[in-house]
């Protein structure tokens, strides 16, 4: 796997944007409004800042251990058994994430678009197409991302501009009316909307210039944060803080409420739906690729392609477990809190801090005495 094609910074940006924007953006306006009322968008902003900080920490790890992923330096830093356990956890986490993506996509498309297509077929076809992409390397996914990201950033916001006359920005008032305690509690929920950035732990060594990772991550997360904020502001200003809490997928319903003046398209939500399906496909594929990478690195295989299809079956069966949409979202909440927060936020920090304490890695900055290696590093 070390001989795979390297990705550029732009490709990393595209990968991260298409990875982070997925199933979360549908429910995001509702969840942040439930947490913080009209201040939901501030919550999104605060979450974005936290995630940018964490991703900078992760990118430091990548610089401290060049050409290594978390699978290798995790074992070095935390001792071998812990490292392996940790990597296995990561693998399970990514696999679960894939199945959630697939199942939520199936539920949404079944509700809004394909009434009579069986869930099994939707999930199955999605996974098969995803398999096709995951068998290739990260650079392929990156090129795919570069093609798609501009479309799904620009088109929805073009449509959204048609809704500006119907927006009532006073719905965002009162400003800062949420109690700080509630705001902090909401922060725990919002950061899970950004999950996916931790794949940098695996992708950084594949970059042609790993040093640029922090910058690229900041750009990508900045774009995602802005998109999230716009989605929240737009849907809150269209629906108001009460109505939005009743909508299962406010972001979609918002596009349902849009009528493009003078357009031949009566309903633009079909286009939005199509774009969203592609974003979920990308999210799924990248998590899938991450799972395959962890596995491949763990058992040290040269070629990961053969593990993809069996894994697709596992993801498929996991995706079929929840009985209905209520159970699905309950599982998803539990997953985000009990797996997402540890693997996204806590473990990378633990590794970083342990590595710094044990003064490991090529870039020992501890104490600031080792100027030589600092120079080498920069």
């Amino acid at each position: 796997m070390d001989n795979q094609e390297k990705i550029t910074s732009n490709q990393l940006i595209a990968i991260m944007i298409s990875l982070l924007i997925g199933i979360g953006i549908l429910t995001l306006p509702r969840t942040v409004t439930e947490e913080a009322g009209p201040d939901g968008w501030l919550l999104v902003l605060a979450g974005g800042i936290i995630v940018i900080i964490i991703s900078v920490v992760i990118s430091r790890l990548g610089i401290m251990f060049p050409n290594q992923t978390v699978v290798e330096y995790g074992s070095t830093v935390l001792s071998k058994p812990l490292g392996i356990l940790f990597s296995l956890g990561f693998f399970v986490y990514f696999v679960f994430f894939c199945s959630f993506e697939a199942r939520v996509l199936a539920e949404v498309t079944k509700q809004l678009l394909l009434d009579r297509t069986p869930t099994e077929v939707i999930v199955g076809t999605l996974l098969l197409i995803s398999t096709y992409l995951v068998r290739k390397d990260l650079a392929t996914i990156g090129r795919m991302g570069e093609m798609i990201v501009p479309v799904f950033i620009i088109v929805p916001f073009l449509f959204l501009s048609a809704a500006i006359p119907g927006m009532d920005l006073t719905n965002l008032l009162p400003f800062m009316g949420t109690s700080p305690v509630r705001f902090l509690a909401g922060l725990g929920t919002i950061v899970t909307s950004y999950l996916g950035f931790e794949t940098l732990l695996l992708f950084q060594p594949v970059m042609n210039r790993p040093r640029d990772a922090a910058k690229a991550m900041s750009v990508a997360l900045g774009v995602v944060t802005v998109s999230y904020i716009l989605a929240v502001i737009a849907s809150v200003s269209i629906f108001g803080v009460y109505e939005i809490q009743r909508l299962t997928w406010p972001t979609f319903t918002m596009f349902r409420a849009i009528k493009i003046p003078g357009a031949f398209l009566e309903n633009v939500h079909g286009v939005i739906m199509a774009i969203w399906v592609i974003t979920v496909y990308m999210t799924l594929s990248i998590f899938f690729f991450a799972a395959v990478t962890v596995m491949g690195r763990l058992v040290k295989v040269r070629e990961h392609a053969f593990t993809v299809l069996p894994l697709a079956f596992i993801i498929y069966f996991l995706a079929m477990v929840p009985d209905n949409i209520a159970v699905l979202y309950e599982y998803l909440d539990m997953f985000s809190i009990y797996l997402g927060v540890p693997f996204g936020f806590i473990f990378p920090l633990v590794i970083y801090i342990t590595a710094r304490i044990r003064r490991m890695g090529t870039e020992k900055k501890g104490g600031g005495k080792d100027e030589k290696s600092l120079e080498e590093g920069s």
Partner: protein
Amino acid sequence: MKSPLKKAVSYVLAAVLVFCATGCWDRVEINHRFFVLALAVDKFEYSEAEEKKGEEEQQGQNGVQQPADSRRNRLVVSVVAPNVGLLRSEGAIISEEMKFPVSTVGPNIHEAITQLNTRLNGRIFFGHVKVILVGENLLSDRRLFMETIDELERDHEIGRNIDFVAVKGDAKDALFIKPIEEPIVGTYLELVFQQRKTGRFHERKLGEIITSIHEIGGALIPRLIVGESEFKVAGSSVIKHHKHLAWLGELETRAAQWIDGMAGEGTVSVEMQDIWVSFEMTGLKRSMEVARDDDGNIYLDIPITVEGEIAGYIYQIHRDVMDEKFIEEVETAIGREMTMQCTEVMNKIKDEFGVDIWGIGDHIRKFHPEIWLDVKDNWEEVLPDIRANISVLVNVRRIGIIK
């Protein structure tokens, strides 16, 4: 080259692909769809006379069950679809009718629609519904009305930006009459709402009305009056506590919209020294100020600014219209008239009905959170006690093309 086994496997896969990649469970041919343009929902009320009448009407449809007085029969659901065949009137033999209205009874909308599907040769599709009509009796039944609204909002095919009207009488009638201009009530109403900014009906879409009902339990719904062969959208139904409370007349509706900062394109007429002056509005702006004094009284100040032109006076025999003093007099007179109309409707809706259709509570919550904290729990009692003051400032900008 590949081994025979590999070859066989790839052929099998290719064959599987043919079945996987073609066809779609949800494919429906366009001519097998029944494009509903208007949906009317009424409360089912059993009467023997009507049953007989119904029998006569539906003689052509043998085997259609007559609605009986059963627990299941709660709603009358009617839909109308255009005759798509007429659009390309060549080839197949098609009916001459412009539209196909059908109606049935059932416990809820979706079950009624399923019943209709057994009678029609196409699948009912709600994606192009332009207007939803609800009858007076349904509006007055809180439970049924809430069920209906929930079903409408829950259905993903029905958009939120469509029109929603309350029909005086039976909503079903609107679908079955043959109007002069446009055969189908759906497209007809859509055009009425788009083009005629008379201010005499409340311009709100389904989504906004539902939101308002959820937030404050009340709303204004535009009223549709069905005549022999025409419709009229005028006035509105006041919803309070999730059901119809009263009808609001045309002029009252207009004044209610002025307070809401809408309907800035109507005409106001006022009598000045025995001569009627008509004033055509071109713009209307409104703001809201809330203040509370030390005794806890809440004062609501609504200044409205209107712009427009004089559209009619009297020919030559009285005064010159192009005169600053005269224009000032007109401004005062129109302002007084509008203030009066607004105050009247404000008193009626706020004090008498106790419905917060203008989002006064919302305004307080947004701009005066500290006041809202005190009043939100008993907002309904507080609302009539708010002292409202409406003032209308009129600016006559033009006088037409004669002096």
